[in-house]
């Protein structure tokens, strides 16, 4: 009597589930690549112009940030893309991005053009309005950048903002992304209408318990003194 060896087999539903998971993984990899920032709650970035960006929640690839005054906003982990939802005293807004995440993985010369469509609601009246922003982004050659927080190898991501109606270039922003930091260490902005350029750079990073309000305040005070 010969014994029959049972070969491992999967039910069709299991196979489909595995295939779906693999597909999602490869889709994720192809879109974001391996160098996508990996944020954790309480990661805090303090810039020399007083800007503070603190992670308060991570929901899949949606990152909930808080600024210096504690106001929260949501952005994908592509820091160069416009925020996806925000709220102020008088309005709340939501934004959809079409085609914004194709820059990952960050390879020199890679470019993307995307449109941000916002729906803004006035809290008091409930009136809604739709706004459109047009962006063109491109990965520049790697650069070594010196900022108050140190010297970093960076990948510059240059994005031009276009007029929604005339398509003329209104401004250009460059984010200098440092993989070692997992965030941008400098942002430079040029207004194409006036020729005025401004920039700010990373002064300090904090994480975990170190990212408490007392320490953030101390860093900001030391920046004010400088």
């Amino acid at each position, binding site marked *: 009597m010969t014994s029959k060896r049972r070969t491992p087999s999967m039910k069709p539903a299991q196979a489909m589930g595995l295939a779906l998971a693999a597909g999602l993984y490869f889709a994720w990899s192809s879109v974001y690549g391996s160098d996508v920032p990996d944020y954790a709650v309480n990661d805090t970035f303090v810039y020399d112009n007083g800007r503070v960006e603190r992670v308060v929640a991570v929901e899949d690839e949606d990152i909930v940030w808080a600024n210096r005054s504690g106001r929260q906003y949501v952005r994908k982990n592509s820091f160069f893309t416009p925020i996806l939802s925000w709220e102020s005293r008088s309005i709340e807004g939501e934004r959809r991005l*079409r085609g914004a995440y194709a820059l990952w993985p960050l390879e020199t010369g890679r470019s993307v*053009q*995307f*449109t*941000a*469509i916002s729906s803004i609601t006035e809290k008091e009246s409930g*009136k*809604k*309005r*739709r*706004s*459109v922003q*047009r962006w*063109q982004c*491109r990965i520049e050659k790697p650069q070594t950048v010196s900022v108050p927080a140190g010297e970093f190898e960076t990948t510059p991501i240059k994005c*031009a903002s*276009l007029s*929604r*109606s*005339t*398509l*003329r*270039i209104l401004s*250009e922003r460059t984010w200098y992304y440092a993989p070692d930091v997992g965030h941008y260490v400098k942002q430079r902005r*040029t207004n*194409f*209408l*006036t*020729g*005025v*350029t401004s920039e700010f750079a990373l002064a300090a990073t904090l994480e975990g318990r170190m990212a408490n309000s007392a320490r953030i305040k101390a860093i900001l005070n030391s920046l004010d003194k400088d």
Partner: protein
Amino acid sequence: MKNAFSSLSIAGLVLGGGMFAGLPDGARAMEFERDAWSLRLDLIAALQGAYFEVDDGPGTESDTDGVFDFTARATGEYAFENGWVAGVRVEYDSDFDEESDVGGGTDFDFVRDEVYGYLATPWALVEIGEQDGPADRLSYHAPTLGLGQIRGNFSRYAGSSALLSPFDTQDSPKLVVTSAPWRGLRAGVSYGADYKENQDEPNPRRRTIQENPIEIGVQYQRAVGDIVLGVSGAYVTADADPITEREDISSWSAGGEARWNNWRVGAAYVDRGDSNGRLGRDESEVNYGVAWDNRKWGVAASGATIDRSSRSRQLAAIGGFYRPHRRVFLRSDLVYSDVDFDDGRQEDSIVFVTEIEFRL
């Protein structure tokens, strides 16, 4: 004084100005947004005065003059869910156009200036209607703050203005397609209906009829360090109706501009050739200028050298603006013009023109 520069106009302007200036500085009274729709209305009233002197050799004449201007502009837009934007823009204003007024007059007319519709997509802007073409829109040249300086309102009173960019078909009906920037490079092309001026003129030689007008414009702009640099090129062509005995349009220009920290420096070379002229015009122009503008106030200086077959002309201007309120502009220009004719005659003029403008 022109008849339009009447006491009624002044009274209206003062009354309107008081009303405009009474609005809060940040008010956006004439912008309406609801869902995907937006509508912006601009009502602009201006009172302009000028002092000018003309020295044509035998003697010098001086005079003062003034004009009341009014512009009404409406822009309506619809933003589609995919981010495309469709819009319509209509502009009516009091017209002063030497070439369109029979006999080079300076009549006050309230006429349609621009009417066009557009569709903006991520890849291109498509416009159809009566508006400027890409040769005008994409060209860099001398900056012209104030009242237009070398291409400004001074020519209402004495002398004629510089071209700045190719001789074109102005606001004649056309279809314009302009690309979105690609690494800073934009290109546009237009094709339009016949370009016509002075059609009521009984003498066909005083009319302008240019058929099959095509305009092409190319512009490249990028930031280099702290400076925003731009270069441009433009070409315009059209076929003259033989009845006018004028030449075809064939005009081009090349220009450049640099912007840095509210400063702007620009220059262009314009070859008009014989475009729309008679008896061999062969005109070329070099214009240049520098400006500083922080949106609250600005000053500029510009100049042009214009050579044509029978004369050469120099224009020099300084001017500026001050904005004491979001809805109020004060503008002034001082323009000197020197025309040297081949037969030795000379004609100099100097124009000081100033204006207060109210916007609602």
